[in-house]
């Protein structure tokens, strides 16, 4: 059977599986809807968190991104994994002990302030929406590339499946489909990584092949011979200061992302939240330590196969013909000497490789069975769908739980609350779809914005809420506003308004760190100049510091 037939079969089977799980996990009460009834075992929650966290971009684009950045790709590897250390040590167990439903809820309650609550709601919606659009886009692209469906149809298919699961199953449905989606995506990624490592080095374990072979050095030398930069040498694409700041922003942003934090609300006990963070990072590390190996091996293989080779020889390769058709691989013998040269300059290079090819072309390059091609497509879809679902529930709960039932209508009945939550999920999904079909050009940059914002608003507010008993509403709100305004102004100014990078050349992706420091400073100064928080809030802080007494799912 052809790769396309296999892809149809595998994609339809996995979609049926997700819908089946979603139906099995349908819920009737708000605790089930928002926090899966707090009955998710730590290992399963780790897998769900990993799927929730690893997006279409992690699966499809990250290895390619690293292979083009060389050493400096470390900002993504260290940044996106190191954040889990902060999450496990500083936030997750305490937020689980607090035991409510959402992140804005903790911020609003801890700072006894509806202003703080609303600032947190707006930040949660903005961060999640920015993140959800590329996920939907990712689904559309995978479906269109592998199955020939047009992008709009692909996005709507994704929206319908995700909305179905989220509407009937809430967090419980999402959690258990994410466990299935993690399984699909990690199998797909590891199969390609293992095949590629085995194909080039004879060692089937990508991490070992990467660590104990000299391929990174050989790739580095090959790139130098071709006139490109040295692969293993640091700070070729980003200055040392920017590598430092972007890594820190991504770490702190990861720890402050609401869709990641709420996953730790679903485990039975506060101590489970610590273990669960470990499992989550272990499951994530399986992919994140395979990615740099895939980056080195596929880049080496592509350059070695294509660069300085005769036109006829290259054109005869199967996968070259196929990927040339998609426009992701561009070969053009510009100087007409019958040989393809690669150069550092866009104008003279005769080989242009889109970064998405690095993962997507691997099954064919490593001559794997057509089934694997289908599996990789299903893996990309699983990564995108699981993240989209996690983000939808954050937006829906921020609107239905924090705005509607906490501020607008606190007397709402259980049935009304649940109905509102379901309608909001449906609305958010349907509203996001057109953006996924025609994403505004700036959406990719908005992801940097999302991290900067999470780093400069949520992270300090939550951290101080737990570790500084004296922190009060005035301090937290002032800190969040200063962090938000500073970070947003710098990003918008330097990215869109043509401002110079006036702070030591700090790139907009790394400025969230500065926003976070400003937040801490302002929060400290303002809180010390204003009265301490009420006694019951200080008692609450003492209470969340110990795991004892973390309740089962509670109504409130």
């Amino acid at each position, binding site marked *: 059977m052809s790769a396309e037939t296999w892809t149809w079969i595998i994609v339809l089977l996995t979609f049926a599986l997700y819908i089946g799980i979603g139906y099995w996990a349908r819920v009737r009460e708000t605790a089930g809807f928002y926090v899966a009834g707090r009955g998710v075992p730590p290992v399963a929650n780790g897998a769900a968190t990993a799927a929730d966290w690893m997006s279409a971009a992690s699966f499809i684009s990250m290895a390619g991104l690293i292979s083009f950045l060389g050493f400096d790709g470390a900002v993504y590897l260290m940044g996106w994994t190191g954040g*889990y250390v902060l999450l496990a*040590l500083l936030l997750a167990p305490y937020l689980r002990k607090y035991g409510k439903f959402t992140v804005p809820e903790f911020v609003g309650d801890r700072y006894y302030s509806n202003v703080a609550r609303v600032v947190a709601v707006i930040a949660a919606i903005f961060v999640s929406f920015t993140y959800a659009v590329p996920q939907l886009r990712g689904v559309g692209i995978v479906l269109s590339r592998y199955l020939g469906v047009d992008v709009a149809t692909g996005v709507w298919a994704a929206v319908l499946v995700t909305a179905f699961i989220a509407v009937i199953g809430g967090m419980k449905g999402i959690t258990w489909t994410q466990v299935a989606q993690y399984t699909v995506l990690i199998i797909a990624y590891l199969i390609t990584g293992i095949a590629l490592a085995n194909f080039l080095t004879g060692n089937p374990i990508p991490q070992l092949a*990467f660590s104990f*072979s000299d391929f990174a050095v050989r790739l580095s030398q090959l790139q130098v011979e071709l006139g490109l930069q040295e692969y293993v*040498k640091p700070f070729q694409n980003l200055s040392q200061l920017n590598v430092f700041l972007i890594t820190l922003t991504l770490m702190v942003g990861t720890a402050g992302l609401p869709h990641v934090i709420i996953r730790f609300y679903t485990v039975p006990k506060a101590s489970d939240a*610590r273990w669960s963070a470990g499992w989550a990072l272990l499951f994530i*590390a399986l992919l994140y330590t395979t990615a740099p190996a895939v980056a080195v091996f596929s880049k080496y293989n592509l350059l070695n196969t294509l660069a300085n080779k005769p036109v006829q020889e290259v054109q005869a390769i199967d996968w070259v013909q196929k990927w040339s058709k998609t426009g992701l691989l561009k070969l053009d013998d510009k100087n007409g000497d019958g040989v393809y040269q690669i150069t550092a300059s866009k104008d003279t290079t005769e080989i242009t490789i889109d970064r998405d090819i690095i993962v997507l072309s691997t099954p064919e390059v490593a001559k794997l069975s057509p089934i694997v091609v289908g599996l990789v497509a299903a893996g990309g879809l699983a990564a995108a769908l699981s993240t989209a679902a996690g983000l939808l529930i954050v937006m829906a709960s921020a609107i239905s739980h924090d705005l509607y039932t906490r501020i607008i209508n606190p007397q709402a009945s259980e049935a009304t609350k649940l109905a509102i939550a379901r309608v909001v999920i449906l609305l958010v999904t349907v509203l996001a779809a057109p953006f996924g079909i025609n994403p505004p050009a700036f959406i990719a940059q908005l992801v940097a914005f999302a991290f900067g914002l999470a780093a400069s608003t949520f992270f300090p507010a939550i951290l101080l809420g737990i570790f500084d008993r004296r922190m009060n509403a005035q301090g937290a709100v002032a800190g969040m506003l200063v962090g938000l305004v500073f970070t947003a102004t710098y990003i918008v100014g330097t990215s869109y308004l043509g401002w110079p990078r006036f702070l030591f050349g700090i790139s907009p992706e790394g400025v969230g760190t500065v926003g976070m420091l400003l937040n801490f400073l302002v929060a400290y100064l303002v809180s010390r100049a204003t009265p301490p928080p009420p006694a019951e809030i200080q008692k609450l802080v*003492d209470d969340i510091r110990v795991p004892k007494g973390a309740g089962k799912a509670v109504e409130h």
Partner: protein
Amino acid sequence: MSALEAYWKENLSLIRNLLLVWALVSYVLGILLAEPLNAVRVFGGPPLGFWIAQQGSIYVFVILIFYYASRMAALDRKYGFED
């Protein structure tokens, strides 16, 4: 000192030590000293600075979290704060 204060103090010092390791591996070895460490190659593999930044640091992060969870479980038991 109350049990809560003693428990919290031990927790904070554990967190501080683990965050020092976290920062040492990623920011000091993986970024600040990446260039000099790149002069070293272990077992014929990639240069050390590059390896720590792209691979080794992630292993350390995983170990740090599991170590923290197990130490805190012991601390919870010691003070009778298990949930």
